C-alpha cells in the first residue's frame, strides 16, 4: 500500500512538472492555448459572436482558444485586466466601444492606447427606436413633436456615461430635441422599458430591438449609419434626413497588450480574417444579423482615435468629464 502511494505521489509530481514546462517559449507561435478576455458577461451579443468563432479559430491556429468573461464597471474590470496581461500573444482582449467611453467618465488606468489593435470583425450601428404607439412615424415628426412639447421625450440608455448615453446625447444636440436621459442596467433593460411604454425612445442597435419591432411594440425611425441596414431596408439613415454627423460605428474588434511582437499580431489578424470567411461563422452572423466588418489593426486604431475625440467632446458637453 505504501509503495503504491509513493508511486502515485511520484507520478503526480511528474505530471505536474510536465504541466509547468508546457509554458516554455518556442519559436513558432502559437504553442499553447490562447485566451480571449471578454469584458462583458456571458450570453450577450459580443460573447456569442466570439464564442461562435472559437471552434474555427482552433482549426486555423492549431491551438485551443478559450473565452474568459471579466464583466463589470462599464467593462473597466476586463480592460484593466487585459491591459496588464503578458504581451506574449496568448492573451487577447475583445475591444468594444466601452474601451473609449469608460475612460471618459471614470478614473481608470487604461485607454484605447493601452492595446495594440489586432483587427475589427464586426460593426453595428445605432438607431432611433420609439414606441409603436408614438404619435410620430418619422424622425422629422418626432423632432416637431419634441419641439411642440418640450421635455416630453425620454431616452433610455445602458447607464450614465455608457455608449448609448453618448449617442442619445448626440441625437439630442444634433436635432435640437430636449431629451431626458434615463439610465438602466444594460441596453436590454432599456428596451424592456421601451416595450412597456416607460420611456419614449432608445438608441440601441437594430439587433437589440429586433424582437420588439417584430412583435409590433416598437418602430425604428432612423438608423445612425453611413448606409441603410440590410435587416431594415425601409428605414432611412439619419444622414439621408440631413443629419450628417449622426453616424456611429459600434465596433467589435480584438487587441493585445502593448509590446506584443508584430509577427504575432499579424498571425492573429490573419486567423481572425480567415475565421470570419468560414461558412459556419458566416451563416451564424447572417442569421443573427451581425454585420461583418473586417478592418486591419491600423484601420481599427484610426477609427478608435477618431471616435475618442467625438466622445471626449460629448463628455464635456454632458458635464461627465471626470
Amino acid at each position: 500500500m505504501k509503495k503504491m502511494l509513493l508511486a502515485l505521489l511520484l507520478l503526480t509530481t511528474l505530471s505536474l512538472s510536465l504541466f509547468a514546462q508546457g509554458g516554455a517559449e518556442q519559436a513558432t507561435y502559437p504553442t499553447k492555448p490562447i485566451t480571449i478576455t471578454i469584458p462583458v458577461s456571458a450570453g450577450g451579443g459580443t460573447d456569442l459572436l466570439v464564442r461562435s468563432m472559437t471552434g474555427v479559430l482552433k482549426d486555423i491556429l492549431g491551438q485551443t482558444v478559450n473565452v474568459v468573461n471579466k464583466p463589470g464597471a462599464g467593462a473597466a474590470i476586463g480592460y484593466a485586466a487585459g491591459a496588464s496581461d503578458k504581451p506574449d500573444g496568448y492573451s487577447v482582449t475583445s475591444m468594444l466601444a466601452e474601451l473609449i467611453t469608460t475612460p471618459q467618465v471614470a478614473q481608470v488606468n487604461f485607454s484605447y492606447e493601452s492595446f495594440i489593435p489586432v483587427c475589427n470583425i464586426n460593426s453595428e450601428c445605432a438607431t432611433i427606436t420609439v414606441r409603436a404607439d408614438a404619435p410620430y412615424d418619422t424622425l422629422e415628426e418626432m423632432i416637431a413633436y419634441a419641439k411642440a412639447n418640450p421635455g416630453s421625450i425620454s431616452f433610455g440608455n445602458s447607464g450614465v456615461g455608457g455608449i448609448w448615453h453618448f449617442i442619445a446625447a448626440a441625437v439630442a444636440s444634433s436635432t435640437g430635441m430636449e431629451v431626458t436621459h434615463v439610465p438602466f442596467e444594460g441596453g436590454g433593460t432599456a428596451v424592456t422599458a421601451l416595450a412597456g411604454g416607460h420611456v419614449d425612445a432608445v438608441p440601441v442597435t437594430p439587433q437589440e430591438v429586433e424582437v420588439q419591432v417584430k412583435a409590433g411594440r416598437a418602430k425604428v425611425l432612423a438608423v445612425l449609419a453611413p448606409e441603410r441596414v440590410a435587416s431594415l431596408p425601409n428605414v432611412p439613415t439619419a444622414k439621408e434626413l440631413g443629419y450628417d454627423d449622426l453616424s456611429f460605428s459600434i465596433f467589435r474588434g480584438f487587441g493585445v497588450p502593448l509590446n506584443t511582437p508584430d509577427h504575432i499580431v499579424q498571425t492573429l489578424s490573419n486567423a481572425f480574417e480567415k475565421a470570419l470567411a468560414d461558412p459556419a461563422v458566416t451563416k451564424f452572423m447572417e442569421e443573427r444579423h451581425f454585420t461583418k466588418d473586417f478592418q486591419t489593426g491600423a484601420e481599427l486604431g484610426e477609427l478608435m482615435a477618431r471616435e475618442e475625440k467625438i466622445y471626449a467632446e460629448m463628455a464635456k458637453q454632458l458635464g461627465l468629464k471626470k
Partner: protein
Amino acid sequence: MFVEVLLNVLSLDVLLALVGGVAAGIAIGAMPGLTSTMGIALLMPLTFKFEPHVGMMLLIGEFVGGIYGGSITAILINTPGTSSAAATVLDGYPMTQRGEAGRALGISTIASATGGMISGLMLVFIAPTLASMALKFSAPETFALAFFGISIISSISGKSLVKGLISGLLGLILALVGMDNISGFTRFTFGSIFLMNGLSFIPVLVGLFAMSQCLLSIEDLFTNNSVDTTNIKRAKISMKDFLKILPTMIRSGITGTFIGIIPGAGGDISAFVSYDLEKRFSKHPEKFGTGIPEGIAAPEASNNGTTGGALIPLLTLGIPGDSNTAVMLGALMMHNLTPGPQLFIEHALTVNTLFAGFFIANLVMLILGLSNVKNFVKIVNIPKNLLVPVVMVLCVIGSFAINSNFNDVIVMFLAGILGYILAKGGFPLSPIVLALILGPMAEGNFRRSLVMSRGSYSIFFTRPIAATFIIIALVSLFFPIIKSMFAKRKEAA
C-alpha cells in the same frame, strides 16, 4: 399536434438532453459559487450541435436543476449553493442538525418539483394573460417590490429584531460600493477599479455562508460536537409531512411564478418573500427557523416556481424575467426562434414540445433528487476534518470561477471572516444577503423613477402596482416593531 408533441418529447435525444441538463444543473447548483446562470452560459455552445428543441431542453433542464441543486448544500452543510437557496438554510440546516437530513432533502425535492409544475401549468394555460404584467413593471414598481423585499428583514431576523436590522443595514451599505448607475459617480471604492463594479455578490454569499461555516466548524472539530448521524437513515419524508406542506407548496409555487414574471426579480427574492408570507400567516410563526417542513417547502417551491414564471415573458414577449432567461433569449435567437406572439403560431410544435419538456424536466428532477437522497446525505457523514478543507477549496475556486478574478477570492475570504464575527455576535446572516440583492435594486429604481418623473414623487403613488407594494411594505416593516412594543408593554404591566 398532441401525438407529435409526445413523439418529440419522448424521443431518446430529448430525454437524454433533459436528464443530462437536470443532472448537470443539480451538480452546478449544489456547488457554492457556480450558479445556474453560469451553467446555462457554459452549456449554450453545446446546444448548437443539436436541433433547436433538443438544445433548448438541455438549457431548460439545467435551469430547473440548477435552482433546485442549491438547496442540497444549503440543507446539508449550511451553505446555499446558489442565492436562490439562501432562504432554505433558515430551516433546512436546523433539521439536518437534528439528524433529519433525509427528511429535509425529501421535502426540498418534492417542494421544488411541485413549485416547478405549478409554474409550468401557469405557463401553459395563462401565459399570455400574465405576460402583460411584465410590461407594467418599470422603475417605480421595481422599487416598490424591492422595498417590500427589504421589509422582510424584520421577519427573518431571528431572535433579535434590532440585530437583524443592523445586519440588513450593513448589507445595504456594502451594496453602495461601486459606480452609481444613475449619476456615474463612484462611491466607496478607494480608487480601486475592481471595486467600481461593487462587491461581487456570489463571492460575498459564498464567504458569508460557506467560509464562515467552515471557520465555525473548526471550533467543533477539536471538541467532536458533530451532527448526530445515527438516525439519518430512518428520517424520511412521510405522508404526514407531504399533506402538511401541500398548501404551502401551492401558495409558494404561485407566488414564485408571479415574481418570476417580473423582470429583474428571480428565485432569490421569491424564496424570501414566500418564506415571509408563510411565516406571517402561519399558526405557529415562532417555529420558523427551528427546522420545520413549511420553512423548507416555502422557499423551495417558490424558487422553482420562478422557472416557469421567467419563461412566460421570455416566450411571449421576448423579455427575460431573470439572468437565466436572458441567456436563454440568446439561445432562442440563435436557433431562429424569435420570441413573441408569432412564436406560438409559427413554431407551435416547438413551443408545445418545450412546454411538455418543462414538465418532464421537473419529473426528472424529482426522480433524480429522491433516488439520490441517500447519496447526498453521505456528505453529512464525511468526517468534518476532511469535509471542511474540501469546502474551503470549493469556496476559493468557486468565487474565482464566477468572474475569473482573483480579487473575488479575497472578497470571499473577508466576507467569511465578517460572517464568522457576525455569527459569534448573534447577528443573523440572511438579512445581509437580502439587502445585498435588493439594496441596489431599490436605490437605483427609486432614483430612476425620479429621473423619469423629472423629480416628482407622485410617481410612486399614482401607479397602482407601485402604491400597493409600498403600502404592504410599510405595514410589514412596522407591524413587528409595533407588535414587539406592545408585547413589552404587556410584560412590564
